[in-house]
């Protein structure tokens, strides 16, 4: 057989039928549903149909769950959460509802529970489903009509994507994380470079990332316009998955690992596009604008629209600066923040919380802030390690698991005009609240911004901590 990429191998293993126009009907191994899937369930009901494979469907409450004890649950959010539990119960789907020991953001909880596995095809009515690619799954977000389609048939129609390989070679410096890698890639290539494509992340710097880091990297794939991003499974992946509740156990696990090893891209397989990035060029990165591509190294200056020749782009930059309340040419580290948010499916895993806690240990935050663990499991682990005490001692709020202030659907909002150092993935206008200003960065960088009250290079604080 001709050499194939991991993308092609997983695709080929899932093709049920090919339509004359080339689109394929693919088998879906896992379907994750959340409160927002109510449109999909409503369509199923409208057709008088049922869920084809409840055993492959899993529900978790994330977008609307309250994450701050200080904020009362509003009745609409409570209804959304209840609706998910009821829809799942009606169709025999396992559901990790509010308060459940396994509840969490779908993209945090599923990998942690071993629901995400190499070689699986996974979908969820949420664009950041690309996160699951970190374990070598072919995972992508779908819309509500597709949610209904998958519920009813356990299949999905897709066109074969173009394949891109991004190879990051080298070693990331101290204080430089997967988040910086992801932001640096988007800043360099733009939000549209991978439109509709599938990305394989490769190279020694990617292999050097923990599974948590890979989840962050793949999470942000969607911000490049791509359908999905993945990392070939390796020993790091297998070690992470061994013993997870829904993963195969014992001899079954070993047999699975044998299969998973075959997934890696063959030596001579061709991609539609190859991109090489040098890990040494990546530094702590933050966004200054209203699109993830509007990002720069923290040591730099807020860019000047006068320096871009493309008039549309210059206009977009001017517009971004005006929304963000920034002046072209000002040092990024002079940007003062009003609050911090550490959480979301991008950066709310145990390793992220450890990174933030390492910076905050023995220090005080100058601004209010919220730390929201990505799942009930992460919360338990963090509390067992005493991380909650570090956050609380620093003056931050220790919240519950959910999407929280990433999108503010549960009422955890950034105020109008307020500036937030945030570990999330979208800095769109109004994303964290009407007229809220979002700067995306890594958990360590958000913690550093909390301590200093302005954006700053976490490496300075690390040096201080050592002296």
């Amino acid at each position, binding site marked *: 057989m001709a050499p194939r990429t991991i993308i092609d191998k997983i695709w080929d293993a899932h093709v049920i039928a090919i339509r004359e*126009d080339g689109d394929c009907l693919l088998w879906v*191994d896992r379907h994750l549903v959340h409160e927002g899937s109510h449109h999909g369930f409503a369509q199923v009901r409208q057709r008088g149909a049922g869920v084809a494979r409840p055993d492959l469907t899993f529900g978790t409450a994330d977008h609307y769950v309250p994450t701050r004890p200080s904020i009362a649950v509003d009745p*609409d959010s409570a*209804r959304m959460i209840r609706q998910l539990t009821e829809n799942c119960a009606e169709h025999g789907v396992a559901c990790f509802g509010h308060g459940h020991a396994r509840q969490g953001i779908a993209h945090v909880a599923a990998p942690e529970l071993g*629901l995400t596995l190499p070689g699986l095809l996974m979908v969820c009515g949420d664009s950041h489903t690309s996160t699951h690619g970190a374990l070598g799954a072919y995972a992508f977000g779908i*819309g509500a009509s*597709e949610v209904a389609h998958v519920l009813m048939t*356990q299949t999905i129609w897709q066109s074969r994507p173009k394949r891109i390989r991004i190879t990051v070679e080298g070693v990331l410096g101290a204080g430089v994380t997967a988040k910086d890698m992801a932001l640096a890639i988007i800043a360099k290539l733009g939000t549209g470079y991978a439109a509709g494509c599938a990305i394989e992340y490769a190279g020694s710097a990617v292999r050097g990332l923990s599974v948590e880091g890979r989840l962050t990297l793949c999470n942000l794939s969607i911000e490049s*316009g791509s359908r999905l991003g993945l990392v070939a499974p390796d020993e790091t992946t297998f070690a992470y998955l061994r013993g997870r509740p829904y993963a195969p156990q014992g001899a079954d696990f070993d047999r699975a690992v044998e299969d998973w090893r075959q997934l890696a891209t063959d030596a001579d397989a061709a991609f539609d596009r190859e991109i090489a990035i040098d890990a040494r060029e990546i530094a702590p990165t933050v966004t200054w604008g209203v699109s993830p591509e509007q990002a720069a190294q923290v040591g730099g200056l807020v860019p000047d629209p006068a320096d871009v020749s493309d008039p549309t782009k210059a206009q977009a930059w001017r517009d971004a600066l005006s929304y963000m309340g920034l002046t072209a040419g000002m040092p990024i580290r002079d940007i003062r923040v009003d609050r911090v948010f550490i959480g979301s499916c991008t950066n709310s895993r145990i390793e992220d919380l450890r990174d933030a806690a390492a910076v905050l240990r023995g220090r005080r935050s100058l601004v209010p802030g919220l730390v929201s663990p990505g799942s009930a499991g992460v919360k338990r682990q963090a509390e067992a390690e005493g991380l909650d005490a570090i956050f609380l001692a620093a003056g931050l709020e220790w919240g519950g698991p959910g999407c929280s202030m990433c999108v503010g659907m549960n009422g955890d909002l950034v105020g109008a005009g307020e500036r937030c150092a945030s570990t999330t993935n*979208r800095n769109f206008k109004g994303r964290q609240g009407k007229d809220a200003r979002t700067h995306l960065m890594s958990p360590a960088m958000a913690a550093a911004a909390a301590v200093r009250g302005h954006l700053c290079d976490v490496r300075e604080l690390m040096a201080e901590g050592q002296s």
Partner: protein
Amino acid sequence: MIALTTIEASACPLGLEHVDTDQLIPARFMQTPRAKGYGGFLLHDLRRDASGALRPDLAVNDPRYGGAQIMIGRANFGCGSSREAAVYVLADAGYRCVLAPSFGDIFSSNAVKNGVLPARVGAADIEALLADPVVLAGGAIRVDLAAQTISVGNKSIPFEVRADWKKQLLNGWDDVDLTQSYAQDIAAFAARDKAQRPWATPRAG
């Protein structure tokens, strides 16, 4: 789904770049059952200024485009989240077509599933449309899906759309009906796959 062949209507020259799905419909409206109609949420926050008043400088607020069925945007229209509600707001507000040089991937596939045509038009042609006197006056333009052309006055502008989406829209096909005709293939695949990839079935947990 209703078939879409031609649209003859005024076009709203929105002309914005990177209109993400958070702008198309702010997240807080998405709990609303679809039956209540989503049209009123279209670009809800963008349309309003700080005091909550409708901004007169935005084409969606201009009465000349009140009956528009065609939206004209710039690059990367519908980028961002997978929320299909970003299409519901357009569809429920009467839009059947969006013209832009490029689209968010999930947005365009969601659009087709709701009978809304995401037509890719060259960037220079988009600029011409946004400056066209007929368009600006709120006059009717014509989108012909079979011919893949947009007619404005006596100008004709080509557009691109994926062949399968074109067919689906022209015929008003529904994916679920189509898939159900493959029921036997699906069952055979599932049986074969269970033997080949036993690890793919989740453990009882």
